[in-house]
Structure formats: structure tokens, C-alpha cells
């Protein structure tokens, strides 16, 4: 028996936002970069909490997976390769940049006065596309999670663009950081820790299954390709952390990873091309099955799978790239 209905979340909003402000000041003031990175981890957690209060569960999900997990790990790895105290030369107070920032900020804030009030039902965004999506999604697409139906079907082209952006970013990082490097130096305080190994062995299969659940359950609850890909990558990251990079590389070899990075985007595009070959528009899923709604389901399934594969492969590949770089 669950208490139904909306509650006044105003107080929670204020508290969480106050946390954010406090953390931001702390991040700026801390000269210890390592501590600052940890605090950005907390920042992501609170942001996700705020998204949840705003009822945006899918976004909170992605923020949790990416911001609190992968981002923090990659930043920590970068710190381990570079400096850990911010250079005092950059910490002097500079008047000109401060002036520019204050003026730009003031202009932006002034611009927001013209925006419709938060949650205003008369706002343009609630007048044109949103009602149509909300009303028609049930008949036309038939998946309970409207976020997925908008993301993967109505605005499937935009999502295709996003996936391609991830792919391109990965290529950029490969070009910058890739290439042969010598292996890691051995030894850190937690090597061969038996408790960690047993715990990881118990957890990793569960995390992978959970990633699959998130991938395919995205039609019904929060989830989808992006989140699932990140969670799957997190499982592989955990394996690498606990059992060592050498073992992880043997399982997730470079070539299959690269193929997977491209393969997901290719899958997505192929669905679109298949639609065209069957006579409809690019990424119009209706002709993919015997009737339109099932076509939509199939299309969304394949497309989300493509996204999930690419995101997982990119995250793992980036992580491996960072880890492989030799300690300076």
C-alpha cells in the first residue's frame, strides 16, 4: 500500500540545490584536484537526485550511470597520469575574465525573464508536439514508456545523431591516445585482495544481467540503450580494476571492441536504410513487420540495441585506452 499522489517537493529542491551550491564552492576552492574529482562525483549524484524530484527518471538514470560512475573513473585515471594539485599560477584573481563572465551571466539571467514560467501549461513546448506524442504514442507505438517512444521512434533521427556523436568522440580519443604503449607498472595496495576478488566475482555477472534488463526493459520502465551500455561497461571496468588489465584485455580484445563501436551505429543506420528499402521514410519503423505497431516495436528494439552496443564498446575502449597509457 503505497502513498499515492504528488507531494510538495519544494523543500527537497531547495535543500538539494543548496548542496549543489556548497559543493561547487568547495570544488572551486580545493586545490587538491583529487578531492575535487570526488566532489564532482557527489555533484553528479545530487544532480540525479534533482532530476528525480523533477520526475525525469530516465535522465536521472543516465546521470547516475555516467556522472557518478564512468566520468569519475576516467577523471581519476587522468589525474593519476598528470598532476594532482592545481597550479597556483592559475589561481590568481583576474579582473577582465571576471568582468566578462559576470556580464555574460547577467545577460543570460536577463534572457530567462522572457521564458515561460517553469511548468506553465501554456508554454509553447506543451502546446504543439508534446500533447501529440503523449496522446498518440499509445496507439501508434504501444510501448508504455513514452520517453523511449519519443527517443527511439518519434525523434529517432536525433538519437541517431547522438549515437554518431559518441562514435565520433571515441574516434577522436582513439586518435589522440591510441597507439602502442607499454603496460602498467605493477603493484598497488589492493592487489590480490581476496575479499575484493570474491565480491567482484559475485557482482559482475549480476551487473551484466542487470544491464541487459535495463536495455530491454526500457520500453516499460526507465532505461534504454544509453543507460544499459554504461552499466555493462561498468561491469567490465570492475573486472579490470579487480583482476588486472592484462586479463581484461585477453577477454575484450581490441579488434572486437573496435568493431562493436562501429557496429552499433551501423545497426542503427541499417534499420533506417531497411525502412527506406521497404518503401517508407528513413527510420520509419512501420514497414518492418506485419503491422505498423509491431514494426515500431521491432524498430525500437533494434535501434536501442545499436545504441547500447556502441555506448558499451566506447566506454570500455576509452577506459582501456586510459588504463593502458603508461604512468609518467
Amino acid at each position: 500500500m503505497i502513498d499515492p499522489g504528488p507531494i510538495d517537493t519544494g523543500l527537497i529542491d531547495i535543500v538539494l540545490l543548496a548542496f549543489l551550491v556548497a559543493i561547487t564552492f568547495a570544488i572551486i576552492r580545493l586545490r587538491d584536484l583529487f578531492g575535487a574529482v570526488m566532489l564532482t562525483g557527489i555533484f553528479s549524484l545530487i544532480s540525479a537526485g534533482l532530476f528525480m524530484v523533477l520526475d525525469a527518471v530516465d535522465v536521472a538514470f543516465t546521470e547516475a550511470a555516467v556522472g557518478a560512475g564512468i566520468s569519475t573513473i576516467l577523471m581519476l585515471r587522468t589525474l593519476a597520469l598528470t598532476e594532482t594539485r592545481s597550479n597556483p599560477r592559475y589561481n590568481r584573481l583576474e579582473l577582465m575574465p571576471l568582468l566578462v563572465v559576470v556580464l555574460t551571466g547577467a545577460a543570460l539571467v536577463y534572457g530567462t525573464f522572457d521564458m515561460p514560467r517553469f511548468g506553465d501549461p501554456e508554454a509553447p513546448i506543451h502546446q504543439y508536439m508534446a500533447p501529440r506524442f503523449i496522446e498518440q504514442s499509445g496507439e501508434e507505438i504501444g510501448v508504455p514508456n513514452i520517453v523511449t517512444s519519443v527517443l527511439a521512434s518519434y525523434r529517432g533521427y536525433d538519437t541517431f545523431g547522438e549515437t554518431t556523436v559518441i562514435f565520433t568522440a571515441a574516434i577522436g580519443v582513439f586518435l589522440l591516445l591510441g597507439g602502442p604503449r607499454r603496460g602498467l607498472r605493477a603493484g598497488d595496495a589492493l592487489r590480490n585482495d581476496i575479499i575484493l576478488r570474491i565480491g567482484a566475482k559475485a557482482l559482475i555477472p549480476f551487473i551484466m544481467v542487470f544491464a541487459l534488463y535495463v536495455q530491454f526493459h526500457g520500453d516499460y520502465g526507465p532505461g534504454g540503450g544509453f543507460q544499459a551500455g554504461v552499466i555493462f561497461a561498468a561491469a567490465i571496468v570492475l573486472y579490470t580494476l579487480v583482476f588486472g588489465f592484462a586479463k581484461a584485455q585477453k577477454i575484450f580484445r581490441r579488434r572486437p571492441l573496435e568493431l562493436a563501436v562501429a557496429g552499433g551505429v551501423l545497426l542503427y543506420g541499417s534499420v533506417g536504410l531497411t525502412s527506406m528499402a521497404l518503401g517508407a521514410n528513413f527510420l520509419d519503423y512501420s514497414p518492418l513487420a506485419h503491422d505498423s505497431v509491431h514494426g515500431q516495436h521491432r524498430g525500437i528494439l533494434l535501434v536501442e540495441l545499436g545504441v547500447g552496443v556502441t555506448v558499451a564498446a566506447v566506454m570500455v575502449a576509452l577506459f582501456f585506452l586510459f588504463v593502458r597509457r603508461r604512468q609518467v
Partner: protein
Amino acid sequence: MNNVLDLISWMCLLSGSFFALVSSLAVLRLPDFYNRVHGAGITDTVGAGLILLGLAFQAGFSLISFKLALVLVFMVLTGPTASHALAKAAYRLGLEPVVSHQKEDPTSAA
């Protein structure tokens, strides 16, 4: 029956919140890192357990309770592991625990 369930749920939630508060207070106020690890461990097990149990009583026997149980199993599995890893790393890397300092006994032979 509903009232009894509600009452149990209430009590679990309240005591869980109490333990969560105590745990954070410990992390804030205890003098040494290793003491604070002890304090933080309270949340992962008792605090989370009671709160999630209280929520599970509210939800009845359903998929939601199953998910709550999953979250609990997760936290009980990963929380102490993380505390262990943290304490071990700190110790191996040289952080010494604070041992009590005996005050000078003025009556002992100087």
C-alpha cells in the same frame, strides 16, 4: 492487519533513519579515519536494512519488495567490501591509526 503493518513499517523507518543519522554523525565527529570507517559501515548495513525493510512493509508482497530486497542485498554485499578495501588501502599506504596516548601519571617516578 494493515495497521500493524503500518506500525512496523513506521518503526523500521524511524529506527533506520536514526541509525543513518548516527552513522553520519560518527563520520563527522570521530577523531580518526579508522574510527570513521566504522561509523560509515553502520549506514550500509543497519541503516539501509531498516529503511528498506520499512519501505518493503509498505509495498506488500510484490515486485517492488523484491527490488528493495535486491538493493539491500547489494548494499550489504558492496558496503562492507568497500569499507574493507578503503581501510586496507589506507593502512597499506601508511596511514597510522591513532592509538590512545597515556597521560603522564604525576605520581610515577619521573
